[in-house]
């Protein structure tokens, strides 16, 4: 009972830190997955009098990833009841070429504007439709989301520091006396602090295992899957090798650092 209580406080602090880190990672992944999604659904339409090949189109900007020509036939087909076929052929000839540009990534508003201007500089291009209004609001939402995440990570950092400091004080109180007494009987520092380091390492392992169980459970949970499919993204929620390695590394680093600080700060009482 006594030993469980000894472990409890640091394990709780560590698990909450690991939880924040993993949540932050998941949100980061969601944002980039979402951005990719946006990039693939976003496109620019170019209207040109002359035909432009893909290479030329790409030379306007490195942003251009894919160029596809839009076939005007199906638009014309809708008109064909009212117009006689002869005029239709004529119409077809006078119709400009339509191109749809896919971009390499979700562009910033300036990138969109630059690309539009570049395209319009070419004589044959008469119109560029960039859906800038829609694009702007989506982009602003994304920026806002990123800011929220930045604030979140900052507050996570502050809370982490506070938790660690609190833990440091508890530990100092718990271990100082024993370390002093062992020192008075001639124990070298590695011996008198051995218990401390063992406790730190054991707690880090416990916290890592708890986080592993927690996130493995969450990643298979129906609710989480449902939420992600609502947003329309697919991400790795918890990588059982890489993420676990990072989390246990952080836990080990923090708790050993804690133990080191206590050993360094340890003074023999007179």
């Amino acid at each position, binding site marked *: 009972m006594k030993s469980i209580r000894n472990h409890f406080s640091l394990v709780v602090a560590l698990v909450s830190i690991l939880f924040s880190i993993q949540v932050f990672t998941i949100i980061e992944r969601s944002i980039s997955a979402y951005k990719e999604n946006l990039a693939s659904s976003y496109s620019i339409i170019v209207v040109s009098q002359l035909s432009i090949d893909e290479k030329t189109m790409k030379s306007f900007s490195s942003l251009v990833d894919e160029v596809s020509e839009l076939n005007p036939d199906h638009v014309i087909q809708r008109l064909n009841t009212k117009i006689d076929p002869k005029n239709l052929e004529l119409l077809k000839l006078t119709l400009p070429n339509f191109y749809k540009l896919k971009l390499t990534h979700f562009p910033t508003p300036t990138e969109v504007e630059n690309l539009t201007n570049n395209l319009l500089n070419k004589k044959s291009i008469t119109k560029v439709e960039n859906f800038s209004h829609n694009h702007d609001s989506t982009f602003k939402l994304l920026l806002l989301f990123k800011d929220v995440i930045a604030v979140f990570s900052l507050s996570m950092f502050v809370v982490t520091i506070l938790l660690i400091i609190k833990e440091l004080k508890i530990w100092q109180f718990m271990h100082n006396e024993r370390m002093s007494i062992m*020192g008075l*009987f001639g124990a070298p520092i590695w*011996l008198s602090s051995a218990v401390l380091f063992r406790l730190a390492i054991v707690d880090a392992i416990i916290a890592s295992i708890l986080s592993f169980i927690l996130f493995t459970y969450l990643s298979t949970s129906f609710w989480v899957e449902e939420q992600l499919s609502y947003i329309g993204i697919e991400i790795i929620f918890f990588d059982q090798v890489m993420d676990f390695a990072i989390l246990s590394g952080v836990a080990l680093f923090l708790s050993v650092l804690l133990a080191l600080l206590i050993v360094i700060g340890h003074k023999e009482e007179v």
Partner: protein
Amino acid sequence: MDRVIIAEDLSLSYSDDETIINKINFSVNSGCFVFITGASGSGKSTLLKSLYGALKPAQGSLVVGGVEISKVSKSKLNFLRRHIGIVFQDYKLIKEWTIEKNIMLPLIINGYEKNVTQNQVDSLLKHVRLKHQSGKYPLELSGGEQQRVAMARALSHNPILILADEPTGNLDDYSAGLIWNLLEGANTQLKTTVIVVTHNIPETMNIDYKHFHIEYGSIHEVN
């Protein structure tokens, strides 16, 4: 005869503005049994602290077991302490360890084998009449019982020097008798040098002893 302790013009203080022990000179021969008396607050515990190196001399020189305390390195001091057995006035037992493990502490630090350790601890527990309490934690014992644990711990590694700060302060006559027997035994059988701070020297001492008295920052021998 070897001298275990040599103090020359030794002054001790906790701060610059108050001197507790002022330029004292005394020495203790190896194998001696010494009592130190003095009024409360006279500096008895302070003197003991300097003997195990927790308080460095403010002035003068103090040599314990051949080691100059004012210049000793941390590792040399640890080495010296591993050969001293201390009974602290406030016991200083490790709360989260059992009685048995507390008594083992000096043996663990000195790297004794497990079976030696166990035998020694069992025999000491018997001597201080605490065999049945060995699995308990210090806070589950009475003050006098804790004091006897502290005594057993100080003796466990057969130190060459025992420093005991009022080791019978909380004990009835019977338990105090057990403690005096243990200290006398260590002194006569193992030739351990024993220094005991006390308010009353037992009338039934069977061995020769020296008696120092501390007063107004000075020390003098009482005959």
